[in-house]
């Protein structure tokens, strides 16, 4: 990390967005006391993370990028053990564990060992463990990474509800849509430095010239992309699946060009949409890096896990 400086306001969802290796997890590890920084300070609710680490840690809950639950213990025992780490009295920790397990839809299976649970369920247990001590700030490191769509929606909904109840959320994510939807402020980090901090909408306004038109034809010829790039006012065009995305300052003129092009070539239009600049455009502009899609990340994870599976056999 290279001299980063930022403030998270009480009650907000603060997003930390950056490519792999940018320093997102390192920042969380330093803020939560797992790593010790070589210089600099950090305060959590007014408590210095190094000189008042116990007080600072009492304020926070942490959900790391890997669901670090105790697989040999049940969901119930995982929560109870967390309560013991916070020295919560027995009756209080049992009441809180039951409350959280019911809230997260896990109470019915709370006596089962966690090792048989799905990734999504383990993630929910992880979040429940982070909330055992009624923390004021919740650190979430890529909370939805590698999860199925249903689990992602459940977890995002939970985060929203918790934030509405007053919990401050510090969220790192590679998912720009997630950051755009959920965060009050976003910091874009690259090579250990913060490139920009602002609200998602204000960040999008910085790249207003990056409006685009998305179009899909029933059939596409191999040289279609090059032809679309030749349209007036189109600065660039990319093929995204079965669609073409044309970057322009003047979407109206591009719509006319598309209509004429379709008529001239006897093409049937499937969809045409005008799109405003996205947080991804801001991200690409600032970092020069296009983030991997969820599918690409999942494929990468599967490839990385493969040797382990072979070793176990």
């Amino acid at each position, binding site marked *: 990390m290279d001299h980063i400086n930022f403030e998270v306001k009480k009650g907000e969802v603060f997003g930390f967005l950056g490519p792999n290796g940018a320093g997102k997890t*390192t920042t969380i*590890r330093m803020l*939560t*006391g*797992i*790593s*010790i920084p*070589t210089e600099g300070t950090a305060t959590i609710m007014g408590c210095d993370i190094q000189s008042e*680490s*116990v*007080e600072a*840690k*009492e*304020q*926070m809950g*942490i959900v*790391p990028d*890997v669901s*670090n*639950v*105790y*697989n*040999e*213990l049940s969901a119930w025992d995982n929560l109870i*053990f*967390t309560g*013991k*780490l*916070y*020295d*919560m*009295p027995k009756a*209080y920790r049992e009441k809180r564990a039951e409350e959280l397990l019911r809230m997260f839809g896990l109470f019915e299976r709370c006596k089962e060992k966690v090792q048989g649970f799905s990734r999504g369920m383990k993630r929910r247990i992880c979040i429940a*463990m982070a909330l055992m*001590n*009624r*923390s*004021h700030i919740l650190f979430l490191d890529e909370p939805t990474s590698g999860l199925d769509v249903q689990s992602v929606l459940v977890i995002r909904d939970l985060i929203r509800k918790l934030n509405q109840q007053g919990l401050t959320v510090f969220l790192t994510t590679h998912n720009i849509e997630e950051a755009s939807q959920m965060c009050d402020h976003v910091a874009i980090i690259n090579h250990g430095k913060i490139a920009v901090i602002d609200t998602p909408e204000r960040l999008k306004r910085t790249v207003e010239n990056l409006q685009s038109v998305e179009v899909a034809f029933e059939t596409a010829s191999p040289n279609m992309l090059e032809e679309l790039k030749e349209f007036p006012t189109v600065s660039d065009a990319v093929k995204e699946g079965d669609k073409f995305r044309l970057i322009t300052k003047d979407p109206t003129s591009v719509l006319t060009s598309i209509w004429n092009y379709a008529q001239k070539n006897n093409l049937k239009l499937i969809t045409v949409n005008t799109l405003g600049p996205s947080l991804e455009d801001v991200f690409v502009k600032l970092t020069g890096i296009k983030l991997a899609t969820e599918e690409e990340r999942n494929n990468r994870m599967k490839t990385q896990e493969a040797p382990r599976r072979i070793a176990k056999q």
Partner: protein
Amino acid sequence: MSNVHSSHYGREIRVAWAIAVKDMRTYYTKPPSLMFGILFPFSLFLSFSIGRNIPLATQIPILISQTLFFASSSIGPVVIPMERANQTFDRFLTSPVSLFSILLGKTLAGIIYGAGVSVIPVLVGIAFFSSQIVNIGALIACFALSSLAFSALGIMFASIPGQTPGQVMMPLNFVRIPLLFISGVFTPIGELPTWMQAVSMFSPLTHTVELARYASGADAFFGPVLNITILSAYAAAFLFMGIRFHIMNQRKE
């Protein structure tokens, strides 16, 4: 925020105990714990004693010392790398408790494991081989101080940043195995050359063997007072160095 109205030290001790209990439940029956903590010292002892005409009074203290040495020092190097690999060790670092209490909890788990396993040869010796314990105080001191010192030794080595028990066990065994040869395990201290007697005084295992022998009625070469003093010093030194090394690791990250 948690409803905490208790003293700082009371809280630290309760958390340390909770960590120890969790480790007992979770890791005592893991294959590396059984292999390095039980199988290793017992098979080493059998390979040394079978077919040799060694009096029983000599054999039982050796087995007690070896099990205390290997079992106590094995839990930390098994538990901590495994917890690093699945990031559960980070849970302790992010909880409102000092690093000393975390490592004390881990040390306690090693003490209980080592002492628990080492009770077996004592009971077997008394029940089946007419082995005698003539000084119970020396035996208690041997168990308490040795398991503490060796468990802290294991925790200190577990600061080596590995994610599998083998990554810690290998360097630990580079220390543990040579100690067997200079600590009066295979050859009584009195029969060693003078220079080796001097070297053996610096091995913590020497003082475990001596105390175990003293408890069963044999003569002690260095004497129980020196044994207790040196074991206590090693326990404190290993605990202190373990904490320092773990902090260094946190800084390196």
